[in-house]
């Protein structure tokens, strides 16, 4: 049997990471009047998006459990530094 590797992104404590499509991305940047540089960052090598097909400048939507709002969306731009 092949040795199963532990995957951080599948763990229940890791919030869901979703890559935004081009249209959604444009909408988001329009909504907040920002460029992707002014968004919080996420490393391309981050364990929770390692297996995703992302390039620098993409935006990742993170659905987090929140104490105040139940569930809240957070956005991060993929960066290399």
């Amino acid at each position: 049997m092949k040795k199963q590797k532990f995957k951080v992104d599948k763990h229940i404590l890791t919030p869901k990471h979703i890559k935004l499509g081009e249209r959604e991305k444009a909408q988001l940047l329009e909504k907040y009047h920002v460029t992707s540089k002014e968004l919080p960052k996420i490393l391309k090598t981050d364990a929770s998006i390692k297996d995703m097909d992302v390039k620098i400048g993409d935006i990742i939507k993170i659905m987090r459990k929140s104490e105040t709002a139940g569930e809240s969306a957070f956005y991060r731009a993929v960066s290399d530094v």
Partner: protein
Amino acid sequence: MAEEKEEQKQELEDVKQAIEGKEGKTERIEEEQYVYKQVRSIAFSVLSPKMIRKMASAKIVTPELYDKEGYPVDGGLMDIRLGVIDPGLRCKTCGSKLKECIGHFGYIELARPIIHVKFVNIILTLVKCTCRECGRILIPDNKLPKIKELLDTVEKESGVEERRQKVKEVIAGLKTVSKCPNCKAKQKKISMEKPTTFLEDEKRLSPIEIRARLEKIPDADCEIFGLKVPHVRPEWMVLTILPIPPVTMRPSITLESGERSEDDLTHKMGDIVRINQRLFENINAGAPEIIVEDLWDLLQYHVTTFFDNNIAQLPPARHRSGQPLKTLTERIKSKEGRIRHNLAGKRTNFSARTVISPDPMLELFEVGVPFAIANKLTVPERVNEWNIQYLKKFVENGPEKYPGANYIIRPDGKKKKITEETKEASLEELQPGYIVERHLMDGDVAVFNRQPSLHRMSMMCHRVKVLPGKTLRLNPAVCTPYNADFDGDEMNLHIPQTEEARAESEILMEVQTQLISLRYGLSIIGCTQDAISGNYSLTKDNSIKREDAIDLLSAVGITDFSGLPRKSVVTGKEIFSMLLPDDFNYSGHSRLCDRSKDRCDKETHVVIENGRLVSGVMDRNSLGEESGLMLRNIHQKYGKDHSIDMLGKIFRLGIEYLFRAGFTSALSDTDLPEQARLKIKEDLDNAKNNVDKLIAQFREGSLEAFPGKTLQETLELRILEVLNKARNETGKVVANYADKRTHTMVMAESGARGNLLNLAQMAACVGQQAMRGKRIEKGFERRTLSHFRKADLSPEARGFITNGFKNGLTPAEFFFGSMTGRDSLMDTALRTPKSGYLYRRLANAMQDLKVEYDNTVRDASKKIIQFDYGEDGIDVSKSENGFINVSRVIETV
């Protein structure tokens, strides 16, 4: 420093020319002529003898200060070429008057070179690391480039000091120390005797020799030590010439007797000049070497203490009175020095600080100011034709009589002090356009503050109320936002001086505007302590005669009694309802409500209908600070001014009621009936038996261990469980049997102070003393005290206190009690500064985060930190404890 000085001089010249060129024109143009320069860089370096001569405008040759007429001697330390400190005189160097002339340096030619104390460490390194014959650094040329590289990285990481240290290490590691790699000269061992003596193989090196050696070091080698040559030459660290600071930085004071008292620096320099002259004379006269050397050492001492009078190996130079002189280093260093005291320390005018004390009769937004302070703090009022009569009264009263004035300010800005003598003249002079600085009066705006100012409620705007006494007074209800108590706390008071400042403080900082906390959306200001006990007693089935009720309400400040039912006896609830607005509705729970039941009892359910308290009692849940929605709802519906007024009245109602009813916590409050005492004894005995059984099981080995625990740990846990249960049991007994009408119980039930556990500890059993979550186990070998048997695990041997405080503790119990007492005392003492610093770091890191109009939280560069404030976008200060009660909003709209 040298470069900086040059630039400054140049700048000064420019400015002077600009002013001279435009003389006679309007002031405005003159102002525009100032030349501003931007500082690109600052270089620190050592003054060269050439530079000292260049910047000096006088050579000092005589220790005398003044001649017989009291005029400064030419070539003396107070030479008028060094600047002016007397009014009316003009500077001989620059021609400007007192305050315009910044002063000029002088110099003295030293008869023999003197080591500069502040440079001894560098000198030692230099002399040790260079050849005594050729002056080259003791590193072979072929190794230099590599070592330089290493040194540069060291300097980048930890500074120049480290670099010099590293040079020493490198040379020590080279093993060529005894022979110069360049001229093959033999090297001798150099050591230093603190503070300023150098030795070579136990033979003394004179400063002349040291200087000669430093001169020999080539420029390129200096750079290895981090000394850039055009700025610093090593030989400059041995003084041949000493700059004399300008008189303006050491002014003499004229005493009342007409005698002049000189500055410490002048005294010290007098010593230097005197000894220097004597040394000169002795050398010229060809005196024996011993005498010259003695004088030389003395001169070295004086120059050293001139720079620093706190050198460990030297006795500090003293005044005749025995007090040590304050010389150059002492002027700059430490808390009282120039930097921390004058540059970093800021002080404020129009402010006061004293001890605070409570006064519940003040309104919440008032602050009681003692007369002594109100006489000194002033408010400027501009005179116009409508208020001139009113303001003249203050001037008439003068500075001594209370509502008076201390100063008048003429329209041209001249400030005149009002005294008994000048009063008449000032009164005469007063006309529209003048400003009168009148004493502080009732109703004036003041900003009140208590440190540490951690949140915006630490600085609030109050109205002044001038009172007799010597302390600042505040309503005890506003202690919470300031985090103040009255065990000796001091607070600060500031009086805004301009119309704008007053408006700003009134609108933004008034106590009323700070009622609702923006941290959790509830009222921060509420009733405390006896105000809660009072309202609880009043509203809990209580009835008083109508006359007494009216007396009570008038004391609170109610004048309209039409709302009070026309009965000869009214209930406490009806009296309390008088303070509520007529259309107020509220429903909530009191503290004693058991929320597990669907509906709670009539007495615990607080219901207010149309401004009438129908059922329930007022306790901390409804009235207290940081809790309960009642105050919050009143604020939302009726606004800040109404709620602050009501809060003040409720507070006073509680206190006034207690004044009339009396309130005493007595020893008999902890009395229990015989039955209860037997019950408690039985419970404790049972527990003890159970523990004994557990221990027996443990010894036999029949005790079953909890999963993941050892047998010992299991036993400890089981024992703790049994003992805690027993203590809770006694607590319940006390709660059931204790007289509910006692004032101790009233305090506990209303939430004013103390709780049932405190009462149970007094009446029945203090319980287990725990350290670090375990029973007490340390002390002696396998026992806690020497009169227990070793390995005794029984409750009493491990810190279980069976007695209550009223019964009294046995000596062993008392000892266990003080163990945990000391532990928790130390814990709080150590934790407070730690958590304070943690908070400070957080506040500093987040200080410029801001909620933008689109509800995002962004930093100063507009980068997004949070996409929706608090993830739900709720402004907590406009919510109810962080939530929005949708059903109630629908109901009310």
